[in-house]
Every structure is written in C-alpha cells, then in structure tokens.
C-alpha cells in the first residue's frame, strides 16, 4: 500500500514544473519517506542541469535537407529491392520471352499450313464485317440478313427461322426441326469471305426392309461438300456402259 502511494507521489513529482511548489500531501510524504525524498532531490538536480543548457537553433535549410535525405533513403531502399529481386525478374522475363517465341512459332506454322491447304480468294472480294442494311429502294440486293423469298423453294417449308443466334452442336439438341435456312450474315475470318451455314449437323438413320426379311440401316449425312451422292447409285446421269 505504501509502495503504491510512493508511485503516486513520484508521478506527481514528475509532472510538476521545475519552479512549481509541491502540494502539502507530497511535502508531508517527503518528510516521512526517505526514498521518495532522495528521488525528489535527484530529479530536481537533473532538471536544473538540463534547464541550464542553452537552446540550439535548427539551420534554415533543415526542412529541405531532411526531405532530400528522406528521398535519398527511399531510392536506396528501391535499389536494394531491385538488387534483391532482379535475378528473379530477369528469369521471369526470359521464360515469358520463350513462351512468346513458342506461341509465335505455332501461329507461323499454322498460317503456313493453312496457306498450303487452301488458296483463298481474297483481293477483289470486299469483306463486309457486317451486312449493311439493305436500302428500301433496292430490294433486289439480298443479303443474309435480308434473304429473298426464293421461288424454287419447297412449298411446304416450315416457318423461317427468326432466331439467328449461333446454335451449338450438342448431341442433345435436335437441329432437324429447324430449317436449314441459309445465310445469316457475313463474317471475315483471316482474309477470306466466310459465311455461316445454318443447317442441321446431325445425320439421320433409316432402317429399311428389303422385302425379304432383311433389315438394313443407312445413315444419311446432314451435310456434304462437293458433288457427292448421298445414296449409292442414286440417279446417276452418266452410268458406265449404259446407253
């Protein structure tokens, strides 16, 4: 209990100014407590010594010099970081460069392969990135976005597809119920005029009976390129050895 009281008294002595008088309770305690009296005498002596030292004025460019020094220290820190991480950074750059070389090589090889496979028509073709709206006074200029009503179309065709969003060829999607309507826009891929073919992609299977108890399944491809017959010997116009 006494010890706590001594701490309170010493804190009050600390907070007291040099020329400020002590309170009666402090004076009373100092008379009874030799330790605190000793503390008070040493502190008073120290304060007087410090108070006797003259003031030191800061130079006029202190602020500028301080900022310059701080900036200098900051640069030193960055350089330190660079010197620490530079090997890693450089390796990363080297790896990135190698990857870039590989990617570029792949692009070059694919371009060369494509060029060998296909000589595409290009220079005179005007590539329209998007089909221009057809002027009302030129109804004969049909575009994919504005297909004409062809007179040779089958009569019982289903309604034309109005949703021209690309459909993904998932096996679960039944494309056959949608008309293989033609062109829904022009798009340029590479340097060749490319157009989408909006048609079913799934082949059909038909199980036939030949009348002698034999069943046979034939598969009809949904799409073919070139003049390839879908069925064997169907309507051949130039059969061999037949006149």
């Amino acid at each position, binding site marked *: 209990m006494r010890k706590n009281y001594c701490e309170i008294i010493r804190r009050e002595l600390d907070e007291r100014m040099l020329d400020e008088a002590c309170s009666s309770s402090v004076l009373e305690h100092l008379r009874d407590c030799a330790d605190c009296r000793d503390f008070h005498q040493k502190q008073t002596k120290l304060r007087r010594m410090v108070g006797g030292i003259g003031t030191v004025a800061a130079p006029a460019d202190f602020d500028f010099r301080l900022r310059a020094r701080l900036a200098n220290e900051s640069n030193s820190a960055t350089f330190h970081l660079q010197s620490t991480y530079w090997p890693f950074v*450089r390796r990363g*750059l080297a790896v990135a*460069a190698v990857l*870039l*070389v590989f990617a570029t090589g792949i692009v*070059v090889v694919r371009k060369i392969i494509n060029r060998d496979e*296909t*000589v595409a*028509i*290009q*220079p*005179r*073709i005007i590539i329209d990135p998007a089909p221009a709206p057809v002027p009302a006074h030129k109804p004969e200029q*049909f575009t994919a976005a504005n297909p*004409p009503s*062809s007179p040779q179309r*089958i009569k*019982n065709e289903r309604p034309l597809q109005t949703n021209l969003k*690309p*459909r*993904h060829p998932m096996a679960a999607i039944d494309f*056959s119920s*949608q008309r*293989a309507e*033609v*062109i829904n826009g*022009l798009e340029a*891929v590479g340097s060749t*005029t*490319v*157009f*989408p*073919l909006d048609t*079913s992609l799934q082949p*059909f299977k*038909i*199980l*036939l*009976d030949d*009348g002698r108890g034999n069943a046979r399944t034939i598969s*009809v491809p*949904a*799409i*073919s*390129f*070139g*003049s*390839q*017959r*879908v*069925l064997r*010997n169907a*309507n*051949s*116009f*130039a*059969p061999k*050895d*037949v*006149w």
Partner: protein
Amino acid sequence: MTVRRLISIVTLAGALLCNTAVFAQEVAPPKKPAPPRRPARVNVDKSTAPQVVTIIHRLNGLKMFRLLLRSEEQVQAIESLDSAFNLMSDVHTNVIAGLAMDDGETIAAWLPEADFEPDISVIGPDGKRLEAKYIGLDAATGLSILKLADKNVLPASTIKDQPVSPGEDVLVFGPEPVTKARALLGGNLYVRMGAIQGRIKNVMTSPSGEVAKFKVGSPRFSHANVGGVAVNEAGETIGIVDGLEGSEATILPAALIRRAVQRVLEQQASVPRPWLGVKGEAVAALKLEQILNRGWEMKRAAALAGKHRGIMLTSIAPGSPAARAALRAGDVILKVDDKEIENADDFTWWLDQAGPSSSVEFTVARPDRPTEEPLNVKLSGRLDLVFSFDLRNRDITTNGFSLIDQGVETIALRAPVASQLGTTAGLLVVYVEPQTPAFEAGLQPGDVIQSIDGKPVSTFRLTTPPASFKFEVIRNKQKLVVTVPTKKK
C-alpha cells in the same frame, strides 16, 4: 550473369523476328500475276475466281425417300426413322461450286443428285446471296443450269474454250468448311471458297478431235472436289470436275460446258440425253470366251476380238428404241453413221452428238449373220439412264394395279414410322407426276394412303381397274378422300 543476359537478349530478339514475320505475312500486298510461263507453282492471283459461286442444295425428307426408291437399296418399306426426321424439312444439305458463265447471268453446276425441282441458294464470291432460277438439267453432261435474276451482280470472267495441254498447272476451286472458324465463332458451320493446286496429266480427245475430258492430278484431291471449277494460270475457266479416280480429277472441258448451257437455254427446260436402251461392253475389253458365250462361232469371234472395235450388247431394255429396232444381246455395233466405234467413250460421244429423238444408222455385226448390216434406229431421250430406276418393276403394293402407272411414287411405312406421321401403316406418297389424273385430283407428296376403295393397301387386290379409285389418305393428321380417275396406260 553475362551468359544469362545473352540468352535473354537472343530470346527476345527471336520473338521480335517471328512477330515481324507474322505481321509481314498479313500485310503483304497481293503479288502481281506472273508472265504466262509455266512455273513450278500456279501464279493465279487469288482474285482470279470471281466466276466461282457457292451453291447450297437441300433435300427434304420426301426427296430423300424418292432417292431411296431409285437407289440400289432395294427398299420395300421403312421400318424406323430418327424421330428428328421430317418429311417437309431439310435432311441433307450439299454445298458445291457453281460456274458463272461469261454472260454474267448463267450458272452451271454439277448437282450430286437428280432433282428436278431443286431447292437451291446461290452465294456470290463476296458471300452475298444471289437470286437465281433453276432452268434445267443437261442429262448428257449432268450439269444443272441456273439463271441469275440480276445480270450484273458478278464480275466478268473468262472461259477458255481452247484445248488444254498436259503439264499445265491449275487450281480447282470449291467451297469448304472452315472448322477453325467454327470453334472460334460459335457452333455454326462456316464455309469459304478454297482451292487445290493440281497439274494436267492427261488430255482425252473425242473421235472428232476436240478435247472430250482431261485429268488433273493432285495428291490432295478428294470427293469433295467433284463439282469444283478448274481455273488455269491466267485465271480462265477451263472446266468443271465431274469425277475422281484415285488422285486424279476428271474435268469436263469448258467448250462442252458451254454447249450444255446452250442446249438447256434453248429449250428453257431439262434436256434428256439420247437413249438407246442397251447395256454393253467394248469388244476390246472382252475375252474371247465372253464373245463365244454370246453365240459367236470361234472363227468369227476370233476375228472380232482381233479387230478391237465395236460395242457388244449384253442386254436390251424392253420397249426401248433398241428393242423396237430388233437389236439383241450379242450384237456388236461397229459404226454410228459411218463413224468407227473403238470403245465405250466413242459410242457415247457419237450418240450424244446425234442428240435425243434423232435417227442414226448403226453398222451391226451379228452372231447369226455372216455379214455386217446397216440398221436404222430412232433414239429417244431419258433424263436418267440406270435400269434399276424403272420403278414399275418395284411396284409391290397391289396385284394387277400399279400406282406407278398412275404417276404416283410411294414407299411403304411400317407401324412405328406411320405413327410418327400421325397415321397407321400405309403408303407414303413421295411424288406425284404432274398432269396425271392423280395430280389433278389433288393427291400430294406427303399424303399417306391408308386404303384404296375401302380396302387397306396391304390387302388391296384388283385385276380389272374401275373407272376411278377412292384413296383414303391422311394429310396433316386429317383424313381425306381423294377420288382419282384411272389413268389409261
């Protein structure tokens, strides 16, 4: 440290060089056409095929069934179908090249299937759709002829009628799928015009001395190139691919294409090819034993085989011009209008030159006659020539009554398929010949005949046809009765 820096610098420099190469390829201006010499590669400017258009030909379910009837599949009935199969909607799409002639409005194309009312779209070189009208088929060449509604939508092109020479380099243009674009741009199939380079290997001349066909070789040819347009170094059209044998494409020359176009445009309709009604083989291709088997005695057979000329007939179609002229199997046709026949191509050529509905004089050698004798034959014309196409031999629906004779082509449906079409088992009408009583009565493709005169088609028997038939049909799941007057044979 120095080595590492060096590696980094070399790597970066390599990447920079590669990128430069890529961009240099992309921005390189088109090369100028080379002088008309014969370099190692074709110097055709990529713009030299404005005469090639893309043709999209569609077959709906009914047309597919009609093809089935006319194929070698021996169809008695349809047992089952994919549920997605639709009679009135497209079940097959064919994408082929079309040749725009130099008049700027006529297009010739080699459609893969015989289709007399084709559902066709024409896409110009710039990818825009062109309105076109189907004019007709030239059966001699197999070319279909179309006419554009607008004459000035295609740039002028050049067609080379002059002979070609072996060794010339050519490009064969044709539409092709763009599989990469499909992955890049979405699920749709994308199409562009591509070309394959080849070289003329062989030129076959006709008996009259003009180019009948020529062959172009390329290891990259496939059946997808059939129908493609062949263009020479100068960008001139020189022909259309009409067949493929191994790695060699057979080209129908431009001069013959031009004649086919003229024939169809003059008629404004399909032009049949001359029809004699025979099957046969060139004597030069026969063994002596085969000649003997046709009734020829040894001495004359040996003499015939030694000449290596003529066509030996192996079968005669009943009711054909050949049958009417009393030609028989075993006869050998040696000449057509005094032109010697050495092989099948010669025979085809001279018959085609004579044309359908013309009269020709054959010089015929017969196994039972000691001397050659002249024989006058009046040819007829047919659009299709394969004997198996005679559907009259396949009409198995009823005894004594032929729907084919009534101008109606049908295909039997088993119960599961019929239920898909909203009916019970019956006969699906796939074609009704125009200007027949059935056509006039309103019978339509897509109808399913359930009964004739009240009897199910499976049990219908008739020996003496009445004045008319009552067809009970299902159309759009509605029951109708169509009364069809009997067509006289």
